[in-house]
């Protein structure tokens, strides 16, 4: 076919190659759109099938609708605890990764021990130990007259939960940070050192900015997992989503309703946060696009 026919009327460029390129890009975009639409249709079909499954369960959607507000009131706590914990966990993970990669035997020993101990024990047990155990250490201070120290060790339920989640996720994320830092080519480090940068400068200005871009998807993944694991703080009586759903279920024996409601809320939360994560990922990748 003739090039003249393909040329859109609005095009000002007289260059036939250029207009063909634009045409090709439009074609690509159309194909991408169709692909997205196909995925959306698959999702809709799957949601319909899920709905059919749920219909066969014995539950009362009206009850869910009437009582969702009480459960939703716990969403703030769930989100807040997760955000604070992931931030502290990221700091711990960075320190842990630097320890693991360091040549100092003490730093390596500490971080290796931390990762091994915390990754090797269940989160719920850690929560119980921190909640019940720390005040007993504090009591030793109290006996010796350091009341302030003792109070420092007596954490509230929310503080205990945040500490346990941070420690736990910090250990897992140590490995992520370590992999991220190691993925940066050794040449970069050598180049930075050749320019006279110190070890700290190399890390801050060269290695970490590039490593962060690589590990952001993994951190996002951990954040999603954390939002769900934050439900474990309900054991200490924190009124977040799981606690509210569970205890409200007991009032009228509406267990399936409340479990489905809580599941739906966590799902929506994680959809939102994975969307935010993908935005952040795109943003950080911009410098690498051509």
């Amino acid at each position, binding site marked *: 076919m003739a090039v003249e026919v393909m040329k859109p009327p609005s095009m000002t460029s007289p260059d036939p190659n250029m207009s063909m390129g634009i045409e090709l890009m439009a074609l690509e975009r159309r194909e991408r759109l169709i692909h997205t639409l196909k995925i959306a249709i698959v999702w809709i079909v799957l949601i319909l099938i899920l709905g059919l499954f749920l219909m066969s369960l014995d539950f009362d959607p009206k009850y869910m609708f009437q*009582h969702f*507000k*009480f459960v939703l009131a716990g969403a703030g706590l769930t989100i807040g605890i997760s955000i604070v914990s992931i931030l502290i966990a990221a700091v711990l993970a960075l320190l842990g990764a630097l320890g693991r990669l360091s040549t100092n035997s003490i730093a390596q020993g500490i971080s290796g021990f931390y990762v091994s101990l915390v990754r090797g024990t269940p989160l719920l047990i850690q929560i*119980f130990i921190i*909640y*019940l155990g720390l*005040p*007993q250490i*504090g*009591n030793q*201070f*109290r006996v010796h007259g*350091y*009341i*302030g*120290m*003792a*109070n*420092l060790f*007596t954490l*509230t*339920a*929310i503080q205990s939960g945040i500490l346990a989640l941070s420690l736990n996720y910090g250990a897992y994320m140590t490995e992520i940070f370590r992999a991220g830092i190691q993925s940066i080519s050794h040449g970069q480090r050598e180049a930075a050192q050749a320019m006279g940068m110190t070890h*700290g400068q190399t890390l801050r200005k060269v290695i970490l900015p590039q490593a962060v871009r690589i590990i952001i998807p993994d951190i996002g993944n951990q954040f999603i997992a954390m939002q769900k694991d934050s439900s474990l703080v309900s*054991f*200490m*009586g*924190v*009124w977040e989503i799981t*606690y509210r759903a*569970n*205890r*409200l279920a*007991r*009032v009228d024996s509406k267990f399936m309703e409340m479990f489905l409601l809580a599941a739906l809320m966590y799902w929506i939360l994680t959809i939102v946060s994975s969307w935010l994560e993908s935005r952040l990922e795109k943003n950080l990748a911009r410098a690498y696009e051509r």
Partner: protein
Amino acid sequence: MKRIYLALSLIVIASLFLAACAQQASTNDKLAEIIKRGTLIVSTDPAYPPQSQLVEGAQRPAGTKCTSDQRTATELKGFDIDTAKEIAKRLGVEVCFVTPDWTLITAGNWADRWDVSVGSMTITPERMTNLYFSQPYYTTPAEFFVHKDNTAYQKPSDLSGKKIGACTGCTYDAYLAGTLKIPGENIDYVVKDAKFTGYETDINALQDLALGDGVRLDAVLTALPTGQGAIADGLPLKPLGDPVFFEYLAAAVDKHSSLDEQNFVNKLNEVIKAMHADGTLKNLSQQFYNTDLATAAAAFDVGQLNQFSK
């Protein structure tokens, strides 16, 4: 660079010690602290209606002294909750609730996060290693149930050598085996040599008994409210005679508190005895359970537990 780290860590350590010195122990007595604070912090798990359940859409009263991570009296309801409210009222303080998991309550070592558990806790020797118990505020009577059609059995002792069902590993199992120990009570084992059948829960045993008199079971030993609930649900059963023993449900206080608990426990005993004497607890029991579970608890002698003997 290294010097900055050193300075920073010194500052952190110094501030920790300053914080340590800044606060002094104001008082060493739990009761005095509660009165001074103006709130009684009670633990309850709102998972067990009608003892304790949450209230949807409740408003916190203005000017409450409860902190934001505590619940006010409006946010919960039930038999335990009303009992706790009344105890606080008689101490002249506001009641605030916290809702840790049952495991954390029975474990002791509360670190003074809360003062007392008013949570229908059965007094057991194991729990007494971690907790002090008050005068019980009500009881769970253990009652034999037989099939409605049965006329042969008049009293529990008639059931010796018969087929009796109960939950496996629970107090009823221990009673039939003759090994039950309840602090402060001498148990009279009136049923001898029962042919015991264990069940996952009491309800399963009652359902087997309901199949017919002597078909699978001759009798079931269970909590009086459980059996009455099954009868209300239409099972053809009837209670046999008087309860054979009582489990006592009391308020509990942490043994590992950093404060002296003795005055507080004595005061709790005094308040609960007064609530028995003026009929408050009996009325609450009628209101929530449609039966008097409180009077038998009034007769319990809490002094027998010897909790403060050195």
